[in-house]
Structure formats: C-alpha cells, structure tokens
C-alpha cells in the first residue's frame, strides 16, 4: 500500500468515509475545522449526507435522529463544542443508538485557546452528560493509529449500541504524517431489531430515552451496564514499549504517550531501565494490565496534558502498591521529552512513598519553578 502525507484532521475524515460513514453533521471549531471542511466536499460527491448545522446542540440532535436509522453516523468537534453536545450525548446513550464522536481537544477550561490539550479525559470517560452511561473512548497517538481506529470505532459503536469517541488533541489534528489509507468499504446498512428503518410488514420500532415507568428505566440502565461489562471484558487496547526489563515505567495516553516514547529512548541511552505503557482504550481503561505492571516495576511516572485526570484511573489500578509520580502541563502547553526525562531522574533519586499524593507534589513543584 502506498504511503501518503496526510494532515490529521483530513486523514480522519477520509478514514471515516472509507469506513462507510453515511452521514456527518458538524459545526466548525479550531483545531478541528479541516475535518468538517473535508467532509463538506467529500460526502456530497459520494452521494452521502453532510450537514453544517447552526450550532453544536443542533448537530448532536441531527446525529441522534440519523443514528436511530442504524446508519453509520458521526460528528466531530473540539472541547467547547463537545461541552455543548453533552445533553444530546446523554439522550443518545439513553436511547442506546450508535454514533462516533471525534474530539480534537484544545486548551481550556472555557473558551481557552486553540493549542493541544488533554483536558477532556474525565469529561468523556466518566460521562459529561447526565445519568449512568459509558462511552467507549479510544485515544490514538498518531495519524496512522487514528486512521486504523476509525472502522473499529464504527464497529464498536454498532456492536454495543454505544457512543464511541476518538479522543485526540489539536496536535494530532494539525500535524502531517505518512499514512497508509485502508481500502474503501462499501456502505452497508444492516438490518437491526431496534432501528427505525421503515416498518412496512413488521411491528414498528420505538426509540426513546423516556421511561416514565421507573422499574423499566432501572431495567434499561442495567441493560446499558450489561453491555458495558462486555465492552470491559473484550475491548481493552494498549501498547507497550521497552517494558521487558523495565524497573520503572511511564504511563501516558495519546500525544503525552508518544512524547514519553522519546523520553524513554533518551533515558535508556543514559542507562535507565524504563519502559512505556500507552493505553489506547481509555474507557474501558486497562486496569488489569496496569495492576500487573505495578507488580513488576518499582515506581511509575504518569504524564498528561491535564491536571492528573487519567492518573485517577492509574491509582485505582495500582492501589498504593508502589510510588506514583505525576507530571502534567496545562492550558495548551505541549511538554518536551526533556521534561519527562528530568522527572524520571528525580523519581529514581527520590521515589517517595506509595501513599503520597502525586498531584499535590506536582503542584508544589510547578509553583516553585
């Protein structure tokens, strides 16, 4: 297969097209707009649906309607836009219809800026809308990995009647890398026993997130939870680097994870036996694998472009077995690998105690700079 140089946002759009997306709804926002722009050109030429809505709440409700037909539907946005969609996402989850959501995260909170950030991890993995629901969240670290996950995202969304989110940051959206694009898949409309796809000759299907009968609502909640348990069982994804002989390890997802790869190589060149664990499915989080890792290494360094959001999941897995150090950059600042190497050297000199609060110690170091 030929390698072509693609800009992240455009590569994601083309990968979604090749994965058979039938309808895209969106509203422009930097650093994601090229995705919408690409779709506005590409989908009409294929006879598929593209709509630029008047706002993000309109977008997500258009997605909601289209998703009820069982078609492959998606939207994309960046942090403030995703916040505006939260009500609709909860309705989609409550109605148990599949969709793919791409969040190209930027610096926040609030209007923030257009620089890369990982500040929306907790929002999407712990549920930003109301009620008990569990989006599947995949956090790739390169353009190729994102492209390869697009068909997976649609498959997972449909298999589990769930929201599947591709969580990346502005740097992946804006950068260019060589990509091997998958072949074009035919648009396939499967027959679902839940979709509203024309009721001639059969009982009508009713899709809604309203269950005024309380015991029924509890049953639906348990059904959603049951599906989530299957997801937890079957859909864990991660990548490991240099962990075979590692005495300590860095854990980071997405861009922070790939920056950590450079740090690990630099530290290895200094003789430090360090490896990298990079979660790709951040919901479900690979708790079991991190737990096993914490039984093999002496300490962990968690790196993020936020104030320690994934750190909470690592702590849940590690249960104070070994010391954890945290290092984060905020508000759109992208860390350099050198910063992680410094943290690593410091961690080896002074690992601290397993019961230390990593966020508190990191905050003190940041304020003392």
């Amino acid at each position: 297969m030929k390698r072509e140089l693609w800009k992240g946002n455009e590569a994601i759009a083309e990968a979604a097209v090749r994965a058979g997306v039938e309808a895209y709804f969106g509203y422009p926002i930097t650093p994601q707009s090229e995705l919408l722009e690409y779709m506005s050109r590409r989908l009409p030429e294929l006879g598929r649906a593209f709509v630029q809505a008047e706002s993000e709440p309109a977008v997500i409700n258009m997605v909601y309607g289209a998703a009820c037909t069982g078609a492959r539907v998606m939207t994309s946005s960046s942090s403030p836009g995703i916040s505006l969609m939260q009500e609709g996402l909860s309705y989609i989850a409550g109605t148990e219809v599949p969709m793919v959501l791409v969040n190209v995260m930027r610096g926040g909170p609030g209007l923030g800026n257009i620089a890369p950030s990982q500040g929306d991890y907790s929002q999407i993995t712990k549920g930003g809308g109301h009620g008990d629901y569990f989006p599947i969240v995949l956090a790739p670290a390169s353009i190729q990995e994102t492209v390869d996950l697009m068909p997976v995202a649609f498959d997972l969304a449909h298999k589990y009647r769930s929201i599947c989110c591709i969580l990346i940051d502005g740097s992946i959206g804006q950068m260019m890398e060589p990509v091997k694009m998958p072949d074009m898949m035919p648009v396939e409309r499967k027959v679902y026993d839940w979709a509203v796809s024309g009721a001639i000759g059969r009982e009508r299907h009713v899709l809604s997130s309203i269950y005024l009968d309380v015991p029924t609502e509890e049953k639906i909640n348990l059904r959603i939870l049951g599906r989530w348990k299957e997801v937890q069982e079957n859909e864990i994804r991660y990548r490991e680097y240099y962990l075979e002989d590692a005495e300590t390890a860095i854990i980071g997802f997405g861009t922070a994870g790939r920056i950590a790869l450079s740090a690990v190589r630099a530290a290895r060149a200094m003789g430090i036996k360090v490896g990298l664990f990079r979660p790709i499915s951040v919901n479900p989080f690979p708790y079991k694998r991190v737990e096993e890792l914490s039984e093999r290494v002496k300490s962990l360094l968690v790196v993020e472009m936020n104030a320690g959001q994934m750190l909470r999941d690592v702590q849940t897995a590690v249960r104070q077995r070994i010391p954890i150090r945290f290092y984060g950059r905020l508000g759109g600042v992208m860390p350099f690998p050198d910063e992680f190497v410094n943290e690593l050297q410091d961690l080896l000199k002074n690992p601290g105690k397993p019961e230390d609060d990593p966020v508190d110690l990191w905050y003190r170091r940041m304020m003392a700079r």
Partner: protein
Amino acid sequence: MQTEIFIAGFGGQGVMFAGQMFSYAAMDIGKEVTWIPSYGPEMRGGTANCTIVIADEEIGSPLVLNPPAVIVMNLPSLDKYESAVKPGGVLVVNASMIDREVKRTDITWVSLPCNEIAEEVGDRRMANVVAAGALLALMPILTLEDIEAALKAHMPKRHQHLLPKNVEALKRGAEYAKEHAIKAK
C-alpha cells in the same frame, strides 16, 4: 537515527511549505516523518513555525527543545531561536530580512539573501526554497535530488511548470551556503 528541522518566519514566507517539502521527500525515501505547525490564529502576517522530525523508527515527540537544523526567515525568529539550536548544529539565516550576525560560535551558520537570490532565479516567493537548499548543503539530511523528486511527485499539475525554477533555487541556496558558511568552532 533521528534528525529534526525547525523553520520559523512570518506567515506568508513559505515556512510551512518548506517544511512540507522536506516531509514529502523524507517519506518518499522510506523514512518516518512528522510535520507539525505552530502559528497564531491569523492567516498571514503573524509568526509561523514548523518542526519536522525525520527518523528510521516510530516517532515519539513531534517537537524538540534543541533542533540540530534551523532556518530563520526573519529577525524576531533569529532573536527567539538562535539559542535553541543544538550545539554543533546548523543555522540558516535569511539575510534579506535580518541585518545582524549570528552570535553563537558553537554552530555552523550561513547568512544568505534568500529573497534576492530567489528574485534572480525568477520569483521572490521561492526564498524558502533557497533557504532549504542552503540547509541541506550544510547538513545532508536529504539530497537535493530527493527534494526535486518529491516536488515532481507531489506538486499539483498547475504548478509543475515551476519545477525547474524551484530546483535552480535549491541549487543556488546550496552553492551559496557551501561558499559562505561559518563553521562551528
């Protein structure tokens, strides 16, 4: 093996294009490559820079603190990034827009009038290509032939007639750099 190139200037000076030219050439000879831009919200006139990482294996960070190969197209970029060049590295300075010398002595550098050379070749807008040629003469990350092949393979049809002039601009930049470069002490 990994090498990084950093290019900075005003928006409109072809900073992003020069970076993409390196990226296409690196990809076409089978390397891993990342190109990452950084600019303000404005389309033209603001500061713009990009980092290109070229490697034989999976690339980690798309940004580096101390790139070994740097092109600065205007004075604010020289002021800001002179100190960032990796010791022993290469700095290419666009003398058409920068009227001061480089202070560092631990790097190899050349100051060349990119705009005027580009004008002589036929189009002022090729100042970026002149600078790229100068960089590759001082640090052969890619050959001029790699760049030529990439331009040929990836330039849109409507721009293909500009290929010979771009190749000449590359060569003129490289020749100037070979003659005038100040070697690292």
